[in-house]
């Protein structure tokens, strides 16, 4: 009996120690993967956004081309690429950082927060020639006087409209003012289509909102201070609220994301929509509209077309945490070559981020108008409050076109000023 008991105890001990070993094993494997270097080979962790519209042109293909060429030339550096769709890119990268599972290279709007906590290499440490980056985005990537965020791709916004629907509705001129947009949208709505596509859902509400704020001389900031509830911004959203109430937009704009609405435009079901060059491949792959059926013009403002537009870049950032400065520099210098810049722009119809690549594209008929607009483009705020403010804008600003614009905007202003302090 006692023998039985002791053998049971022994069995139990064996089991318990096996479990302990298993737990310890989990712990250690988690630990070593963070380091990422063994036997003279360094593994870089590259976390990038997916600009593709589907499996056929996913950005992991684009990066695989660069990485295989890079690895062939650098036998001691491996690059692991993770691509994440833009819709939840920021939150996924943020989760990695919250869990101290740092990438080596990533992109996105949080770079100034990372820089604030000393997590990033300055651009000059990880790029041989940072002056080749487009100067228009230098201030945007700067935190405390040092550039950390590096543009890899850029874009600017224009107003796209469906010429076919315009003709059907008997409209002859391009929309230039808010009043034009309103009357044209009403006419197209009568045809049974969406007059104006207004994506104020989570995906990119901060871009759509800013384009309307700019139309009345507003914006997120005035002289470096948040002024989200300025009279100009309230006026812009009051105007939008009128359009929504009249049924000239898609139903419930506060819940509609950019990508599905762009796809609807590509299907010929939306009269007007603000878009970036990235809308062009979506139109082409839908194969419903011919290139004669649509065009794009400067964004409509309150009293006339805007002379400035929203310029967006992706803000590449290099993390210090894994200590791979030299390897990151090797890789970024390699990836920033003109041929890869141009390959990216041709694949996704986005704009280059380097001076030399922009020069190479300046004679291209499609890109030239967007490129000339870039130097006087307006950019998002780049202070450390922006990441939090942007999240709140994405979640709540859509309710301004159904609720009370001034209330929603002043709540956002409150978030901004309390995050900034």
């Amino acid at each position, binding site marked *: 009996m*006692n023998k039985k*008991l002791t053998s049971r*105890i022994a069995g*139990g*001990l064996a*089991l*318990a120690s096996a*479990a302990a070993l298993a737990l310890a094993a989990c712990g250690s494997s988690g630990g070593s993967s963070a380091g990422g270097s063994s036997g003279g080979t360094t593994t870089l962790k590259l976390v990038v956004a997916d600009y593709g519209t589907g499996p056929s042109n996913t950005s992991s293909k684009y990066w695989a081309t660069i990485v295989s060429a890079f690895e062939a030339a650098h036998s001691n550096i491996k690059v692991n690429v993770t691509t994440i769709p833009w819709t939840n890119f*920021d*939150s996924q990268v*943020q989760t990695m*950082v*919250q*869990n*101290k599972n740092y990438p080596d290279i990533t992109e996105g709007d*949080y770079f100034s*927060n*990372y820089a604030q*906590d000393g*997590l990033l290499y300055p651009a000059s440490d990880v790029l041989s020639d940072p002056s080749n980056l487009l100067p228009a985005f230098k201030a945007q990537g700067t935190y405390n006087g040092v550039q950390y965020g590096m543009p890899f791709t850029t874009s600017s916004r224009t107003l796209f409209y469906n010429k076919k629907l315009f003709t059907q509705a008997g409209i002859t001129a391009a929309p230039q003012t808010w009043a034009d947009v309103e009357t044209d949208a009403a006419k197209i709505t009568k045809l*049974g289509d*969406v007059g104006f596509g207004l994506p104020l*859902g*989570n995906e990119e509400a901060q871009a759509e909102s800013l384009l309307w704020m700019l139309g009345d001389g507003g914006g997120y900031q005035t002289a470096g201070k948040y002024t989200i509830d300025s009279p100009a911004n309230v006026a812009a959203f009051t105007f939008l609220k009128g359009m929504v109430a009249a*049924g000239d937009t*898609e*139903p*419930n704009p*506060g*819940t*509609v994301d950019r990508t599905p609405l762009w796809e*609807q435009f590509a299907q010929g*079901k939306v009269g007007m929509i603000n878009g970036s060059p990235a809308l062009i491949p979506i139109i082409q792959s839908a194969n419903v509209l011919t290139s004669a059926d649509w065009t794009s013009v400067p964004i409509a403002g309150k009293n006339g077309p805007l002379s400035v537009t929203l310029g967006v870049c992706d803000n590449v950032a290099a993390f210090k945490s894994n200590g791979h400065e030299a390897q990151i520099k090797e890789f970024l210098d390699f990836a920033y070559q003109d041929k890869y810049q141009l390959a990216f722009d041709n694949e996704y119809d986005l704009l280059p981020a380097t001076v030399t690549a922009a020069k190479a594209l300046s004679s291209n008929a499609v890109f030239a108008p967007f490129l000339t607009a870039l130097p006087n483009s307006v950019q998002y705020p780049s202070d450390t409050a922006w*990441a*939090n403010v942007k*999240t*709140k804008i994405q*979640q*709540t600003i*859509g*309710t301004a076109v*159904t*609720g009370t614009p001034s209330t*929603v905007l002043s*709540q956002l202003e409150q978030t901004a000023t309390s*995050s900034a302090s």
Partner: protein
Amino acid sequence: MPALRRLSPLLWLGPAIALIGLVVLWPVVVMVQSSFQNISGIGFVAGYNGTANFRTLFDDPNFVSVLVRTVIWVVVVVSITVLISLGLAQLFNQRFPGRRVARWALIIPWAASVMMTALIFKWALDPNVGVINVILHHIGVVKHLGSTQADWLGNPTSALLWMMGVAVFVSLPFTTYAILSGLQGIPQEVYEASAIDGATSWKSYLRVTLPLLRPAIVVATLINVINVFNSFPIIWEMTGGGPGYQTATSTIFMVDLKQGNVGESASMSTINFLLVIVIVVVYLAATGWKEQVDR
């Protein structure tokens, strides 16, 4: 040896206790600790800040409406689930051809990933091409595809109703099975006795079946309350809590807060945790749970 014998249960219980301590109790401690710390959106702890997180949370204009909505969400989803399950369990307790297949089929909503189910419903409700809207359009309920009427998930009220429907749908299998096993535990003799006493079938259901089912219903309700309270994938996938926070429950709100302020998000979690404990304790006291189980 007797001393060793007295300790031996500990050896068997030890790993389980250690596991519970590690994966249940320790996170609770960290959660409460975090709710009193100043933690930035990228996870850096800048020391303790007293009750500041809780004050920010209570000052949030959305906080109260989110809590009220959470309570409505739990009460409606759980009570409808239990009511339908009572009927379904009764049905599945009858003998009929194909019962085995029907019982298997009931498992499907349970076996499928909730996120998957939520996504399927989201797509089926697409205002332009969703299959539910297309059918409703054909039978004349939805006048125009792509209209405000067809945009079920864009309007907070109709979105919540649809999501409650999905939550009931995924909760039914477990609840039905719990009640079904309760039904099978009721001996046939009590029904014979009540029939001899002249009880109609409705009366014997009310006076015999329901009282004897009570333990099963208590357990099924309790587990559902906890599940539905913390339910995340359905709302996250179907509306993300939007427009604004108008369809968010406290769990969704907590996840959204985490983007900007981890400390405030931890405060929300702590309140969630306390609320679940309070609800469970009140419910157990009200149903006289101890007598049910100790019998």
